[in-house]
């Protein structure tokens, strides 16, 4: 019975043409295999196979202390590394009941939003490139380099920060931090309309994204599709609004929602989110309070026995950290509810009926980062 179910799942009718996209493929962003069953050019069934980059992060975390776990969380969704770090730190701080200085929350939120912009820039590059507009890759990266320069100057590494630690930050920010961010915002506000000119208003791009891969609100909630992909279907799931953390209570911003749920809607939600992030940065960057960069923590962090859950809005959706502790210095069980895990499997609902070229468009618009799926 098991074998039959497996076969039906994978192949469909016998005279279908089964093609593999991946695991090494220029447009699945990471190692992911799509087994696509085709009828001519039309997709009948898509089965994603993941697990090529499963590193056992949850098992490794059971052996590492809490500050060491931070370095592992970076590597899950590496494009929102800071937000992953922050999720674990917030969970541990909530468990210990530690009061974090204002300065730390403000800086954490600023870096969150910078990271969100950087992540969306890379998404835009890759989306254009998958569609065939190869120049967008370079324009997006050119602007992203500015943010990465800020990161490198502040804490030494461009992508995988590990700047957060339970209790606060590793060290204080660079003195030129504020100025750099103000310069960046001024520069990027001029460049972002260029993105619209190049891709959004292009007739070919619209033809390829309008009406493709429509995700209804029902399905978004059922499949747990969060983040910009869910918000494009009208699913109001922004954790920054539902359970505000960090400095999000103090700033005002809109949650970008659309109702069409097609690829173009997901695209537009992310572009709008970049504008919103810049708005948040403008509100926060001039008001970083003075103070400590970290609360006083013991040398060895022992979380009291119990269970703790924290949700954070990463660039791709909702990251949930569930820590089960038995009082030791390492967690007893830690579970990461990653956004890309839920976002991936909705492809087998969205793609059938479209053409192969649309599969690339849909998976580009869902913005998947594969290490997040496999952990």
């Amino acid at each position: 019975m098991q074998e039959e179910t497996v076969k039906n799942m994978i192949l469909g009718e016998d005279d279908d043409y089964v093609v593999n996209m991946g695991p090494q493929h220029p447009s699945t962003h990471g190692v992911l295999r799509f087994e696509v069953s085709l009828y001519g050019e039309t997709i009948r069934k898509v089965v994603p196979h993941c697990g090529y980059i499963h590193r056992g992060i949850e098992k490794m975390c059971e052996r590492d202390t809490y500050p060491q776990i931070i370095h592992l969380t970076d590597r899950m969704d590496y494009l929102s590394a800071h937000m992953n770090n922050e999720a674990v730190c917030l969970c541990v701080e909530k468990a210990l009941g530690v009061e974090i200085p204002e300065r730390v929350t403000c800086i954490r939120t600023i870096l969150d939003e910078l990271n969100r912009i950087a992540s969306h820039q890379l998404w835009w590059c890759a989306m254009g490139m998958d569609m065939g507009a190869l120049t967008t890759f370079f324009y997006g990266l050119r602007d992203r380099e500015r943010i990465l320069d800020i990161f490198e100057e502040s804490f030494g590494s461009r992508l995988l920060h590990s700047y957060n630690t339970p209790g606060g930050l590793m060290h204080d920010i660079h003195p030129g931090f504020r100025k750099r961010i103000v310069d960046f915002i001024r520069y990027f506000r001029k460049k972002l309309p260029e993105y619209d000119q190049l891709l959004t208003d292009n007739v070919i791009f619209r033809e390829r994204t309008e009406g493709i891969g429509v995700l209804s609100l029902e399905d978004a909630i059922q499949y747990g599709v969060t983040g910009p992909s869910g918000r494009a279907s009208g699913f109001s799931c922004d954790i920054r609004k539902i359970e505000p953390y960090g400095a999000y209570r103090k700033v005002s911003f809109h949650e970008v929602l659309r109702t069409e749920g097609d690829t173009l809607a997901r695209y537009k939600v992310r572009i709008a989110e970049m504008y919103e992030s810049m708005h948040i940065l403008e509100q926060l960057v001039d008001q970083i309070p003075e103070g400590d960069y970290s609360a006083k923590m013991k040398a060895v962090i022992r979380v009291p026995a119990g269970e703790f859950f924290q949700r954070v809005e990463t660039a791709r959706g909702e990251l949930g950290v569930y820590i089960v502790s038995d009082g030791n210095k390492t967690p007893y069980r830690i579970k990461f509810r990653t956004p890309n895990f839920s976002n991936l499997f909705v492809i087998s609902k969205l793609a059938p009926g479209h053409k192969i070229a649309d599969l690339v468009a849909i998976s580009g618009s869902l913005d998947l980062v594969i290490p997040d799926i496999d952990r």
Partner: protein
Amino acid sequence: MAVNIYDFTELTRNIGSGLQRAMSPGWARATEYVIIGLAFLLFYAVTGLYIIYGERRICAFMQNRLGPNRVGPAGLFQTIADLIKLLTKELIPIRNADKLLFNVAPFIVIIASFMAIAAIPFARGLQALDFEIGIFYVIAVSSLGVVGILLAGWSSNSKYSLIGAMRSGAQIISYELSVGLSLLTIVVYSGTMQLSGIIESQANGWWIFKGHIPALVAFLVFLVASTAETNRGPFDLAEAESELTAGFHTEYSGIRFAFFFLAEYMNMFIVASIATTVFLGGWMPLHFGLNNTFNHVMDIIPPVVWYLIKTASVVFVMMWFKWTFPRLRIDQLLTLEWKYLLPINLVNIVVVAFLCLMGWHF
């Protein structure tokens, strides 16, 4: 007629008679053929190499970066280095591939493009094949390339290649119609299919100016259709790297891949040459009317240079397309041809025929 443009037929006749005196007629003929063949091969190879270099530089310029600038002065020897690398690569044999067709396919593509280039006029008298049915010959011969592509995809025994080849075949066959019909407008204007005749008829102005609106429409349609013919630009889904690896030439390596690659760029050059010959005057300098000082000034620049400048501009525009636009999907591509370009073309031809009857063009 433009009197003071040098006519290369003097030179070729001199060479021909020189050979006749030196050896028997049969040998003289053979030597002539060998000289022409070698000259064209050299031209083809060198132009191909430098178009590829040009594309990499132009693409880099549009993408905010430098292109190849290390190998040789300003990177000019980059493509030669790439060519040497491709020549020394291993020719990977494919299991269960149809060996004969697999080996023959790249040659068919190259031969088709080579036959087309033989008919291009570079200056007055500097043309290898000058048939009375010039345009018809060029269109017919460049259609042979599709056979090579289909063979390549089929004989590779690989799903990706087959899908790529089928798409490419459908695309090329559809767009040939638009290419042919848009060229037909100028044939109606100039009254001859002979390429040198078309150019001579532009001695008082290029057809794109003389033929005003219908010629402009035909030019734009030709530009779009020929980009699709050559699998370039927004119509390159047959080799879309982000979808199906490399389409019909996935399984080719080394020199065979080099043939496909070279043929693609030379096809672009040929198509640009046809566009310049038919719409932009070929080697004819920019004239307005006949026998005035403006024309004499324009004639100072040699015709070969005019021809190269025009072709280079059209090639630049085609490269610009590629690096700006996203790719079209196969059904959108075919819709574009059958529902938009073909009706436009047909209406255009009727309009041109009417204009010619009434004499309402320059």
